[in-house]
């Protein structure tokens, strides 16, 4: 079997179903191991911050959750667009399977941000561009899920949800660049691909371990959910 044929082979929900189960199990185990390592580094290896004290330890999960919230939205919109363009059942199912996990991480990013902002800025919430656009991201996830739940016809629900997801993707660069485009209370990125991170190595290690753990968790959760959707629909 050539590689291109294999690709189409796994585009069918029935053949993808057992593969998804195996990947989900491996990712769940990896997520648990990385989370344990990440928590250890976050609390026992990374030193107390000179300016923020121990309140900064919230950042390990806050940044990881915020990254996932944006990344998962792009992946969800990607699958929704593929499903809309090529009418492939599994793509639309993947988009539906990712949405609740993305919404959960968006909520976690907002919640941990509020609990970090109170001791550091003196406010749980401010209407600055970064926080507001992240709140809009939560509403986009919830809107996508509510829209799909409200339409009985499965194919129409997939198409309507896909349109919402694709239009909403414009919000992701707004979130990411909001700290540059506007004068926000939220600080700029401490970690970027183009320059050295402006933080201590142990702190960066803790953050990356938590981000990888959340990443693997998201894959596992989305695949378990897509297996449920396949069972429910097929």
């Amino acid at each position, binding site marked *: 079997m050539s590689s291109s044929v294999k690709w189409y082979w796994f585009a069918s929900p029935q053949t993808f179903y057992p593969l998804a189960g195996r990947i989900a199990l491996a990712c769940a185990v990896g997520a648990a191991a990385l989370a344990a390592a990440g928590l250890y580094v976050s609390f*026992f290896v990374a030193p107390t911050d000179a300016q923020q*004290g121990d309140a900064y330890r*919230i950042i390990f999960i806050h940044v990881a959750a915020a990254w996932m919230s944006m990344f998962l939205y792009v992946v969800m919109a990607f699958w929704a667009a593929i499903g809309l363009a090529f009418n492939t059942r599994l793509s639309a199912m993947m988009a539906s399977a990712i949405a609740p996990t993305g919404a959960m991480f968006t909520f976690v990013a907002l*919640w941990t941000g509020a609990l970090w902002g109170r001791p550091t800025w003196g406010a749980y919430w401010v209407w600055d561009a970064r926080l507001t656009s992240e709140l809009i991201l939560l509403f986009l996830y919830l809107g996508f899920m509510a829209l799909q739940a409200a339409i009985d016809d499965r194919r129409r629900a997939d198409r309507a949800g896909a349109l919402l997801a694709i239009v909403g993707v414009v919000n992701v660069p707004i979130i990411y660049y909001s700290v540059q485009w506007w004068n926000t209370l939220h600080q700029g990125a401490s970690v970027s691909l183009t320059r050295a991170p402006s933080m201590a190595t142990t702190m960066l290690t803790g953050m990356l371990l938590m981000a990888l753990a959340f990443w693997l968790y998201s894959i596992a*959760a989305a695949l*378990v959910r897509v297996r449920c959707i396949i069972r429910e629909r097929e």
Partner: protein
Amino acid sequence: MNWGSWAEFWAMGGYGFYVWGSYGVTAAAIAAEVWALARRTRRSREAAP
């Protein structure tokens, strides 16, 4: 090692409420999703064996 005792660990330098409020709610959110997924898996298996 950052902490001299368990009491110091839980106090988080006076930021215990914020740090544990963050980690606790994050753990609860993930646990809730895992629980919901387990329930959905069980129900969809029962409906379509």
